[in-house]
């Protein structure tokens, strides 16, 4: 029994420590569905008024559905591009006899250590000149490029764990180098691809600063920019509305975590069972 008592005490302590967060989260949900009289936090009636953004476009704002579609497009496109480029570049760096291989490896690491924000003015100028400013394609390219060092390095790490003999066996069996990669090596790094894809989609979903600076126009706005717009507007300050949109914004990410929980666990656990 003392064991039981101990775990109960630990649970209690953890509960108390995380109470502020739990209360805040609870109020995020409660506030979005209710109204409370002035001067108190206790709600007195249920209302869907704060969720009106779902069926009517707020004055001076784009439709929430445009923003949602943009966010999906942004997150999906950066994820796809990142996985596609990292899986090939990582393989090249891990296995092919490239010229300047060491230079590229070092370069990728340096890029990874470089803080994004310091580059933003340069990137802004590049997009202006190329005509990609205020387009989704522009931010997608920038976001992907900035995530590439991490992606390439991660995939290289996964490729490094694939035994050389498997590739030699494939070549000996008559397969071209590309077929070996596609049919024999890629299946071995699937956990890596899944991890990178998930990470990238979630990261893209959460990205704020790049779309805010590089694609602020209302028809290419993503949800994070839309959300920030709500509180930057001092004249129409509506905290309940902000909370409702916020809840709407985190819903897909929560869903992804719930669906891929096991998958993510096995990735972080380092399992490679296909």
């Amino acid at each position, binding site marked *: 029994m003392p064991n039981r008592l101990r775990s109960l005490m630990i649970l209690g302590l953890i509960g108390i420590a995380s109470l502020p967060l739990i209360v805040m989260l609870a109020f995020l949900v409660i506030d979005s569905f209710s109204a409370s009289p002035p001067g108190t936090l206790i709600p007195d009636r249920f209302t869907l008024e704060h969720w009106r953004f779902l069926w009517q476009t707020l004055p001076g704002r784009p439709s929430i559905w445009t923003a949602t579609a943009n966010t999906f497009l942004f997150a999906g496109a950066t994820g796809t591009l990142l996985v596609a480029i990292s899986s090939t570049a990582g393989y090249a760096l891990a296995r092919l006899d490239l010229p300047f291989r060491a230079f590229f490896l070092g370069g990728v690491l340096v890029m990874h250590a470089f803080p994004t924000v310091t580059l933003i003015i340069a990137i802004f100028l590049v997009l202006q000149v190329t005509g990609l400013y205020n387009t989704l394609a522009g931010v997608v390219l920038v976001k992907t490029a900035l995530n590439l060092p991490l992606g390439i390095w991660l995939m290289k790490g996964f490729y490094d764990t694939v035994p050389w003999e498997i590739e*030699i066996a494939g*070549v000996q069996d*008559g397969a071209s180098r590309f077929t070996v990669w596609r049919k024999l090596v890629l299946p071995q790094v699937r956990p890596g691809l899944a991890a990178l894809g998930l990470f990238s989609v979630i990261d893209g979903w959460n990205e704020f600063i790049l779309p805010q600076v590089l694609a602020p126009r209302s028809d290419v706005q993503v949800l994070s920019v839309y959300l920030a717009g709500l509180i930057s507007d001092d004249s129409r300050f509506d905290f309940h509305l902000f909370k409702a949109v916020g809840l709407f914004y985190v819903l897909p990410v929560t869903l992804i975590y719930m669906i891929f929980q096991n998958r993510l666990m096995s990735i972080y656990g380092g399992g490679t069972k296909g």
Partner: protein
Amino acid sequence: MRIELQHFSKRFGDTVVVSDMNLVVEEGEMIALLGPSGCGKTTTLFAISGVHRVDEGRITIGGRDVTRLPAQKRNVGVVFQSYALYPHMTARRNIGFPLAIRGMERRAADRAIDEMAELLEIRPLLERRPGELSGGQQQRVALARALVRRPDVLLLDEPLANLDARLRLDMRGEIRRIQRETHTTAILVTHDQVEAMSMCDRIAIMDRGRVVQIAAPAEMYERPASRFVASFLGSPPIAYLPAAATEGGLRVGDALVPWAGTAPRDTPLSIGVRPEDFGPDGPIRLAGTVAAVESHGREMLYAVDLALGARLRAIQPGIARARIGEAVAWGFDPARMLVFDGEGRRL
């Protein structure tokens, strides 16, 4: 098919791994490349398979010059030490992979796979993945994959190194049986002399990138070209005694050993005596004390520290014929001894 290496050399950077190697493997023959690690045997194997570029020399398979041919076009089957099965595929798809790459029609491929599986007795395992197979079973799948396309040449890179002793014994016979039944020319790379002697028609012993001797196992055992070769074959290994050429023979310690060979008088020589040739009954007697007695069941193994300052091992069948610490005067038959000069060449 007949394999021929002519003046083959291979460097990695500044290190010469194989230099000026000549080797002919006859059609249907199985030959072993035997040597210590780093002697260049695996490099040679992968040069034949096409994975390593050939720096100098020529390699032909069945008369066709393959020196510059990419690995994919050589029709060579390879079995790796780690088996290198594709972990995400079932045994059937593993074996079928070389056929699928060649665009063989599904039904014909399945027939070929079943036939191979029959030969290797792995029919019931075909739907399993490598992770669900034991080491010996994986070995069989790897062999099937190497043989299913009817390769011109079968290359085996330490195929038994990862198996336990019991399985190794079984697989030695199995590999040899299958190689014979499919009449495939084969090269076995190994550092295990028992494997080389028991499985192959001929053995090529390599040392530091050079072939030291090529011969049939029995011949090589009886007439090794050098001390290096003699030491490599036989377990427990041959032991050496210092000797000197004198009038009418060799002086070994106090004994005068009759010897028909010739060497300049008083040059330092050595004689090699194998453990099975040393025992209580040999004609040339040497005094010493028994240092160790080991029972191996069928036979006893002794180590005798000789008065002249060397240790000889003896293998004798039956019950113990001496105790540890006992003073003995055991002997060997001079007809069975091997005589080497100062450089280790056999005289």
